[in-house]
């Protein structure tokens, strides 16, 4: 099988002073006083793993363990301090929720705004618009401003827009499988499964072990920036759960 994502010895360091100066005034005062001593903080420490084509890899770890940083590096938003990531960025499609909606605009306007952001063309959106509304179960609400939507409605719409495209070759899901009520969750899981069967390589980030167990063929556990375990999802999830106890 072809390897789709190679993460090779990736480390990410952030400069983090005890209290980061947020203003020039602060920085100036601190430099003058000589108290400005930035420390380097390792968000990721020498991480390596590969994901093969068609695999569904789950990334698990506690809050602040570096999962999101890793995603940002894979999707190309950040460049790691050392190490390399081999992945075709054109194929990557990052799916996160709750971003990119403007509360002052109507549902319909947001579909176009959000769609444009994700990279859909206008003609594509014209064509898929009805399908998106139907999937999100928001018929009759699309001329309402999004600020009047319930949070469930917003995330349903977000999910519907994000997954409206053809199955991307590499799909990265950042905590999206816990959206909406149980019926919608079932529907969205089905849609993701369809994408997986469509041959997509999937990376799922979650701190829920059940999501990982149910969907993944491989699990990667990252803790405090270090790679703890990588392999069979059941085995990895078991050790992860034991740590918590």
């Amino acid at each position, binding site marked *: 099988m072809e390897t789709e994502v190679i993460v090779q010895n990736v480390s990410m360091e952030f400069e983090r002073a005890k209290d980061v100066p947020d203003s*020039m005034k602060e920085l100036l005062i601190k430099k003058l006083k000589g108290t400005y001593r930035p420390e380097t903080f390792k968000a990721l420490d020498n991480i390596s793993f590969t994901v093969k084509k068609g695999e569904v890899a789950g990334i698990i770890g506690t809050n602040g363990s570096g999962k999101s940083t890793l995603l940002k590096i894979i999707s190309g938003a*950040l460049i790691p301090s050392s190490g390399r990531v081999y992945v075709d960025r054109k194929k990557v499609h990052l799916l996160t929720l709750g*971003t990119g909606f403007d509360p*002052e605009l109507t549902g319909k306007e947001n579909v176009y*705004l959000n769609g444009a*952001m*994700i990279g859909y*063309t206008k003609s594509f959106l014209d064509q898929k618009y009805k399908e998106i509304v139907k999937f999100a179960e928001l018929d009759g609400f699309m001329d309402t401003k999004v600020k009047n939507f319930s949070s469930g409605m917003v995330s349903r719409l977000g999910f519907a827009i994000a997954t409206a495209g053809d199955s991307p070759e590499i799909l990265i899901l950042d905590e999206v499988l816990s959206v909406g009520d149980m019926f919608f969750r079932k529907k969205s899981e089905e849609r993701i499964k369809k994408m997986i069967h469509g041959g997509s390589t999937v990376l799922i980030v979650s701190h829920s072990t059940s999501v990982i167990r149910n969907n993944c063929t491989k699990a990667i556990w990252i803790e405090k920036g270090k790679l703890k375990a990588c392999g069979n999802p059941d085995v990895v999830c078991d050790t992860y759960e034991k740590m918590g106890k």
Partner: protein
Amino acid sequence: MQLSPKTKQYAFVIQQLTSREIKRKYARSYLGIVWSVLNPLLSMVVLSLIFSQLFRRSIENYPIYYLTGYLLWQAFTGATTTAMTTLADNKALLLKVKFPMELFILARVYTALLNLGYSFLAYAIMLAVFRITLRPTFIFFPVFVFFLFLFTLGISYLLASAYVFFGDIKHLYSVFLTLWMYCSAIFYPAEQLTGPIRIVIDNNPIYILIHCLRKAVLSGLLPTFFEWAGIVFWCVGSYLLGRYIFKKNRNTIMQKL
């Protein structure tokens, strides 16, 4: 010219972002988009009422003299102040999107440019009210706007990158803008000043643009060679410098966000 799909997509993104800004601005008002023209028109009327009594002897057509400056100045400050915060405002989106983050800055500047278009309608009404005969040089209006656009874009790149690191740039910049405004001779004749301040004014890119536009509208004169040189130097220079610094710091900006 055939646009590549990528450019077409970027244009679609900018169009969507811009329409969001404009819709938002008057989202809670009854008249909506009409305010885009009404707002500058009303302020222009007020300003003309006040200023038509001032400087009457030294400046011919003083209200138009003032409004020409006001038009460009408003576009410049509007664009730079909104573009400054755009990276921070769209933080969550930036990590998700695939297109270059410059587009966010470009969209804010473009929005200001569209607003300049609306204000221009109000300006045209004022020109008619004061019975200004249109000179052939008036057709150079878009040329000046284009250079203003370049200059503004460059400054916006710089401010937007700086704002990510230092929030107080916002306050510093607003103070600096006041100073800059007084150095742009928007509501007084620059000829009255002498000495170092005059040198500052004459080399102020915004003033050069305003001055040349005034000449084109009111006296039918084109900029001199030195004025053209100044315009091109400042505007292209600002654009290139802003772009360079922005590109160079791209990665640190993303880390900081």
